[in-house]
């Protein structure tokens, strides 16, 4: 009797479980693998929050494919490259067909390599990698893959934008390169050396440094004294996280007057640890796809920004996450299915709405192209930077726009495509 009951109970519970599972399957899941613990947790958590916000907007507007919702499933890699692979295995086991990631090119590289093998061995079960921020150039050059789409500009494009802005300032004569010693930093270094020689031969490189990445260096004073004795007037750096904040703090503390040309010095998690005084002592220039205080910021985007502020209690940062999610939803809608291969065909060559004209996914190498804005941190702005309800009294102020044609670079990508 008891055994019968147990059998019945097991049967019912499995049935209930499966019916629930099949309901959950109606959602289109996107796994996001980012650091949610460890030294760079703040960077990862901000980006996850952004993605969740844009997914929710799509869901509130009725979802895709007649009411299916998009669900963001976060996985923590603690900024350890092996953990990214472990979490990716989990994603594969749970049959999630879309992965997104952005913090740390070494992690993105692991995803690209692992998925490359997986997609080759499991036809019909391919997984697409929506890369929202990992910018190492080789991902859309020699490592390019049909199932990888990068929605951020790559390092070469960003450095090209920085260098073309630098050429407009005749006071820049000596530049010091300082980068993190891993895939992304090396990619930045190579791009900077090449593009400075091509586009700004009048600027001399007086220093070229690679440092141990991710907060391992506590004391940047020795680097600052090295920069001082090199006589540099500008620091061109790809540093981000504590490596950027500490470098800028140390420069301010020793009253060294230099210009910073950066990609990521202005990410939210760095702005709040530097504060207004440190971030406005020297001009800190960064390159982004848009920012709130730009005079050309379109009204529809201002509305989305306001919505985001209400959702997250912080100023919006990565607009690329918006067009990534919008374009993904549109591609699923056009494909009429959530199958990654079909969606990939739709994403190729697709255009979306950007802050400054259209954004365009180049079909050749799956690299996003858009106008980029150069801005510096200033206290003289309309909308100040807000982070977790705290007002920091500063934000970005536009220096100029770089047209997409100036940063469109040739690719060496020879992509293998599946049969249509």
């Amino acid at each position, binding site marked *: 009797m008891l055994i019968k009951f147990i059998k019945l109970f097991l049967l019912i519970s499995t049935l209930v479980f499966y019916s629930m599972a099949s309901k959950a399957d109606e959602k289109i899941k996107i796994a996001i693998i980012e650091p949610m613990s460890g*030294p760079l947790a703040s960077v990862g958590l901000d980006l996850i929050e952004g993605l969740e916000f844009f997914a929710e907007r799509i869901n509130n507007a009725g979802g895709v494919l007649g009411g299916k919702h998009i669900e963001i499933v976060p996985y923590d890699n603690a900024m350890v490259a092996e953990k990214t692979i472990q979490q990716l295995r989990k994603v594969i086991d749970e049959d999630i067909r879309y992965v997104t990631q952005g913090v740390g090119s070494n992690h993105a590289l692991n995803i690209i390599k692992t998925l490359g093998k997986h997609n080759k061995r499991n036809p019909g079960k391919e997984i697409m990698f929506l890369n929202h921020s990992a910018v190492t150039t080789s991902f859309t050059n020699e490592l390019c893959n049909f199932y990888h789409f990068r929605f951020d500009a790559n390092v070469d494009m960003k450095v090209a934008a920085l260098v073309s802005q630098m050429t407009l300032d005749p006071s820049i004569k000596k530049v010091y390169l300082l980068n993190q010693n891993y895939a992304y930093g090396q990619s930045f270094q190579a791009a900077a050396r090449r593009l400075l020689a091509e586009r700004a031969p009048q600027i001399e490189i007086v220093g070229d440094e690679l440092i*141990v990445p991710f907060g391992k260096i506590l004391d940047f004073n020795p680097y600052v004294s090295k920069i001082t004795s090199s006589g540099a007037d500008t620091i061109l750096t790809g540093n981000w996280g504590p490596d950027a904040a500490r470098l800028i703090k140390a420069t301010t503390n020793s*009253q060294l007057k230099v210009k910073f040309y950066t990609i990521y010095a202005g990410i939210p998690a760095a702005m709040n640890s530097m504060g207004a005084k440190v971030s406005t002592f020297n001009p800190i220039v960064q390159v982004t796809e848009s920012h709130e205080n730009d005079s050309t910021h379109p009204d529809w985007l201002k509305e989305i920004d306001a919505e985001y502020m209400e959702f997250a209690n912080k100023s919006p940062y990565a607009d690329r996450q918006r067009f990534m999610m919008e374009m993904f939803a549109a591609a699923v809608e056009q494909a009429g299915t959530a199958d990654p291969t079909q969606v990939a065909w739709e994403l190729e060559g697709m255009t979306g709405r950007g802050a400054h004209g259209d954004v365009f996914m180049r079909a050749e190498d799956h690299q996003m192209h858009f106008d980029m804005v150069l801005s510096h941190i200033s206290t003289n702005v309309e909308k100040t930077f807000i982070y*977790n309800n705290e007002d920091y009294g500063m934000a970005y102020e536009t220096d100029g726009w770089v047209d997409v044609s100036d940063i469109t670079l040739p690719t060496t990508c020879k992509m293998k495509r599946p049969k249509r």
Partner: protein
Amino acid sequence: MDVILFTLFNGLLYGMLLFMLSSGLTLIFGMMGVLNFAHASFFMLGAYFAYQISKYIGFIPALFIAPLIIAFCGAMVEKYALRRVHKFGHVAELLFTFGLFYIIEELVQMIWGKVPVGYHVPEYLDFTLFSMSGMGYQAYAMFTLVISVAMFVVLFSVLTKTRAGLIIQAALTHPEIVSSLGHNVPRVFMLVFGLGCALAGLAGVLAGNTLGTEPSMALSLGPIVFVVIVVGGLGSLKGALVASILIGVVQTTAISLDYSINNFIEFIGLSVDVESLWRIIIDLTISQVAPILPYLLLVLMLIFRPRGLYGNRDV
């Protein structure tokens, strides 16, 4: 000449920060034989408490109150937890402090969140004190240096010149005799542990605003502190001071040296043509390997002089 002065001064600044952190740890180890893995966590707590206190009543009160609170926390940890674990030997103690490290990290994340908090150098110390050939030195850096030197002087004289110091030192080697002389040995241990934690807390108050106050700061400083106490000699305050400054100076000097093995080979008139991995190794400059030099020093020290610079027993 200026460059050498810069380097030495920067090295001294960094070294004194390391000293403040490691003095408490080496003291606790010397007195009680407890290797406290959670030591850097008290450093982190110091920074967070100082952030919270200075938000309401200012930085100078925080400088005194935060270490006091940490001392109290440390004493309570010793009295109610570590003392019980002590019976089960060193492995249990190690495991306990290891667990404590994670508990404190999680607590900090629960209270203050995972993102760095905006703990900044107070306005009135945020000016350039003096400058040497273009490099300015912030008043706050000098302030930190003065406090850490004062701390060393006070600590050293208390331990060697006062009655309390004598009892502490005696309790370390001969606890039974000190106890039979009428001194409360467990209380001495509790106070020493509290004091050690307070020193780490003080370091946190002073360094939290320049390094950035975030939940992972304990993890990033933990290993280097162990290097300092092993190189200096476990339990030796003087050793901790010398090792801290040594590591500070070595690391900062190394950063300004852009020489690699390849430069040397070329200098003596040879050229090598090697591929891939070896290429990377011979092209590495001294400045690039600077962050691992302290650990190299640790390994060399363990091989050639396991008791450290001023230690009196092997590790």
